[in-house]
Every structure is written in C-alpha cells, then in structure tokens.
C-alpha cells in the first residue's frame, strides 16, 4: 500500500478525476479515521485490519471503474496507481485466475505465515467445516477470499 502522494508533489490529474474526486475523498477520510482510531483494546494484529480493508475497497473501486465499467481513461487509471490511490500489485493479482478476490498480498506470502503456507482465508469455504468458517485471517481480517467463495 503505497501512500498517496500529496497533491503539491504530483502532476495535475488527467481528465475524469473530478468525477471520482468525491468518492476518493470519502475513502481518504475513512482511512484517516481508521488510522486515528484508538487501538488500545484491540490485539495488535487486529488494529491493522480496517486499514487493509479500506485499502482493499479503494483498490477494488478503481479496478472496477477501469476494467469493468470502462468509466475512467487509461491515463487517469495510471495516474491513480502512480499516486497511490490503488495498489497496483494487488490489482495485478486480481487479473490472475484464482486470485480474483484476493484480500491482500500478505495472505499469499508463504514466508510470513506460521505454517509456511498461504493464509487460511485462501481456503475455499466449501472445504471448511463448522466453526472454521468463522475464522478471520490474522494479517487483514479477511473472512475468506477464495475465488469460489
């Protein structure tokens, strides 16, 4: 999740930015709120979840605008990626089969998990039993992001 560049240090946005400016602002405000939320009573790993989730939603938003609705131009899309409004690496995964709903990049990094395997949220729901279905992953709080879910 690269941080969004401050507007003073970037090129002016291409055409169409004003169409999505307001919604991007909503995401930014949500993000600020999440970052400033007190995390004293929350386990350390959970404190990061809202931030991952908002980041995911914003990337998804931009991804859908460009790839699914053809609502924004290539120039604007590139500009948004470059300026940190969407996570290019995560979007790159979404374009690959089997990763269409991937929650975050951490969840497929095998090294970081205890079991040296991908995150539990990558296991298709259909293969989970009973209480296991309620599991949230440690890295981003994902409840399941297999393509079949």
């Amino acid at each position: 999740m690269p941080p969004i560049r401050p507007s003073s240090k970037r090129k002016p946005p291409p055409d169409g930015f004003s169409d999505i400016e307001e919604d991007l602002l909503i995401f930014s405000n949500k993000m600020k709120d999440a970052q400033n939320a007190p995390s004293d009573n929350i386990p350390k790993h959970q404190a990061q979840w809202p931030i991952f989730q908002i980041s995911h939603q914003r990337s998804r938003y931009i991804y859908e605008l460009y790839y699914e609705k053809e609502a924004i131009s290539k120039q604007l899309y590139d500009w948004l990626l470059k300026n940190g409004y969407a996570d290019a690496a995560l979007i790159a995964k979404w374009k690959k089969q089997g990763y269409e709903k991937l929650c975050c990049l951490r969840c497929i990094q095998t090294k970081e998990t205890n079991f040296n395997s991908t995150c539990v949220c990558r296991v298709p729901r259909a293969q989970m039993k009973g209480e296991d279905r309620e599991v949230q992953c440690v890295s981003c709080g994902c409840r399941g992001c297999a393509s079949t879910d």
Partner: protein
Amino acid sequence: MQPQPALKSTYKAPPLPPGWTEHKAPTGHTYYYNAETKESTYKRPVTAAAPPTAPSANPASSFWQHQAVPQINLSDPNVANAFMSQYGQPQHQPGQQRGGRGPGGRGGSHARPKPQPIDKPRSKVAIPGHEPWILVYTKYGRRFAYNSAKNASYWRIPEKLMPAILELDKARIRQKAEGKALDTLQGSEGPPEKTDGPEEQEKDYDSSEYEEVEVTDDEDGGDGHATKRQRTEDPDQSENNGPVEFTEEDIAAQLAAMGADYGEDYEMGQDYDDYDHGEAAPQLSDDDARELFKDMLSDFNINPYSPWDTLIEQGRIVDDPRYTVLPTTKARKEVWEEWSRITIQELKELRQKQEKKDPRIAYFALLQDKATPKLYWAEFKRKYKREDAMKDIKVADKDREKWYREYISRLKLPQSTLKSDLKKLLESVPLSQLNNRSSASSLPPAVLTDLRYWSLDTKSRDEFVEGYIAGLGPPPDSGAEQGAGEDEATKKAKEERRKRERALQDRERAVQEEKHRQEKKLQFERARLREEERELERAMQVGKKGLQSQLTPQEGERFI
C-alpha cells in the same frame, strides 16, 4: 443462497390427467396448464374418474379427502395469483407452530415458501350438549367450531363451548391410551406401527395429529394413515360422520371465508421482510422491476462513479419503495452495476459533444470582455490572474499569450475586414452544424473556437450571424430524421416509465393490504395460541388424573 426445501411429507403427487403440464411461475409458484383448454390453475388437477380414496371401513372418511376448495380455473396466472392472495394466500408450510418445527436452522437462508395444498376439514365431532355445534379438525391439525344450523364457523372457539370441548379432549386422551393398548393387543390391523416407548406417552396429545399432518397430504388417502384417526377417536364420532349436516362446499366456503379474514397459515417467527411481501403482491415483471430501480437511481442523482458500498452507507435510496422492487441485495447490485455503466457511457458521449466548449471559448470571451491594446500581455495576465479562464490548466500559458497578441492585432483591423473574415468562417462550417435552425446563442464549437468570431463587437457580430443563419437552408435530412427519432424514443421511454410506475403503485397497495392482514393474523394467532396453551394445560391436568384411573396396571406396563 440455496432455497430451502419446504417442509413436506413423503407424499408423491399423482400423475396429471392428460393434457395438463406442470410449470413454475416466476414467483416460484407451481401452476398447471392445459394446452388444449388453455386453462391454468394453481391447484393440481386430478383425473376426474379416479376415486379420491379407496373404500375404507368408514365410508365417511373418503368424504373428507375430497378437495375442499372449489376448482379455480383462471386462465391468466397473474389473475390466479391475485385471486389466491385475496383468497388467503397460497399455503406456506402450514401448522408448523404445532409441531414446533420452525424453518430449518440453516443460517440466514430465506426459503421462498412453496405453495401447499389448501387446508381443509379432515374430521369432525359433535360437541355434546351443544347440538348444532360441531368441532371440525383440519388437515393441518387445526380446529374450529362450526354451527351447522347457522352455517357459521369460528377459529376462535366460543367460550360456552369450551367445557364441552375440554371433555372431548379428555375423552380423546383416554381413547388414545386405550386405542393404543387395543392395537397392540389385537395386532389385527397389521403390525403395530411402533413399539410404544415411554417417550411416546410423554408427547402431548396432539402429537398423533401432527404425525398425521406429516404423513398425509392432499388428495391421497385411503392408505393406512387415513384410518388412524378412526382408530383413535371417539367411536361416537361415526354417527356424526354419517348424515351430511353440512356439505363439503359449505365447509370449504367457511374455511375460505375464515381464510380471507385471517389468512390460512402463519409461521411463527417468520420475519416479514420485503421478500415475503413480494410473494403476495401482484407481480411486477422482471424488466419493470429493474427499470424502476434504475429510475430511482437516476432520480436521486446518484453519482454513477460511486462505489456500491457508499451508496448503501449513504442510505438515501433504501427508503424509496422502488428499492425493494428487487428482492435481493445481489439483484440490486447487479442492476446498479448495469445502470452505472450505462450512465457513465452516456455522460462520456455528452461530454464529447461539448468537448470543444472549453477551455478556449471561455478564454476568448474573456479577451473580448477585457483585452485592450492599452495593456501588454504581462499586464493583462497579472490583472486577470484570478479569472477562471486564466487558471484553466488545460490551456498552456504560451497559447494564451499567442492568442492575446493575435486578438489585439485584429482589433486594429477595419470593421469590413472583420465582417468578411467572419463570413468566411461561417461559410466554412458544414450545413449539418450550422443551418436555419441554429441560433446566435447556440453556435457550433467550430465557430466559437475561432478568433474571427470574437473580433467583432458583440452587437454587430450577433446581427451579422443571425442574418447569415436566416439565409441558410434546413439541416440535411439525416439529421432531421435523427432528431425526430429521438423525440419518438423519448416519448416511448416516458410512456413505459409511467406504465411501470403504475404497476409499482398497484403493488404497493397490495403490499399494504397484505401487511395489514398479516398484522391482524398475527394478533389472532397469538391469541389463539395462548388460548390453546391454556386449554392444553387444563386438559393435561385433568387428563393425567383421568388416565391414571383409567389404565389397568397390566395395560400400563406396556407403556413403560
């Protein structure tokens, strides 16, 4: 989400008579259609010749197996649908509160209720001491009081009948105990259905009725189960079964009348969200529902670029009646997606049309307003730097300067030159863009983005342009046709919108009526349940004592 199978018995439908086929309406109802007669009905047609039951020991038992509801033959399923809803709703999993089986425990799946055969009278017993009154048991284990003299029925059993009915209940409990003992002793009617364990006895006295509801359904009968009631019930009852005191049609009409008041079924704990309401209401076509939802998005001026979650969080649309014309969030999101895609494309096209309007036009207008040979470019730039036209990032400063110089130099030209230059400009624009339908205030970008247009003072320029336009011909044919076609399309779109809004209003009204009825029904059911509980309590209190004194020790042992 997987639809949940309705709670149903093992009953298998008999084959349809020739000519009839089975269909699923979009609402999920099953209906039957006869291609020859063009009839359709919600009620499963039966072969006319087939006797409803095999002859049994008690001829009257077959009487109760008859269809209790007059055959409905409505050729239009929609009409039939409406009819059914006023008739008291297709039967959804009736009588569940009795058996205590709510809709299955699987999380969150709302099963669209399947239509069930209509409840109907199954057996009856005279209420001793209240001669015209009869207690009627329905197929789904409910009962109501029927006054055969007045031909009136009441779900709520009149207070004065209560003691007598209590006696009947007690008698029935005793009968049951004895009947079971008898069965086991005789063993003549086939093998005993169960080895009666202790738990059997602990069940409430209604359990066998419930069982009956479970295993028998609709027109079948004449199998082993149908005779069970006769075994277990008061033998006195048979005399009531003999003479026909009230006909099947009578009782059906009574049931229907009561059903119209209260509905025929009610599931405790069922939440009445829009999904259920949609069931009873006249159905909007799928297309209408989708279009209404889109109308709503447009009417609320929803930003088509916004993400769905934001739309929902803002909550502006969720209270609109059109929000619920689509049954599920999934369906709504789908339609929203389609709408936003289309709306964005339309916006794009519109912008392309207006593309050239800015930024040069605004800058040229500023020049015409403020530029003067007395100001150098640098001075002009400093003086008007706060003007929007000067700040527009789409125009390079270099270009602004170039146009400024060009404009100033043109100001020094004589009027006649400026006019002939403007004439040349106008002549260069094709008739499709500039014609006798154009006006001085809506000139095409080709004119507006040319300095030759801006060099004349406004008054003489507009006069000149108007004179020129008046001398032009009409726009080429293709253009005219397109314009007319658009009008036609707009008219049609408006008409269609009116139509689907009317359909929505009808539906809303029906939903309200249905809601009202459901509320009434709920109140009624609550009251009835309370009453039944009290009644049951009383019956059990007396019943236990009665049983203890009735059972011989030997017979008693069989149950333990």
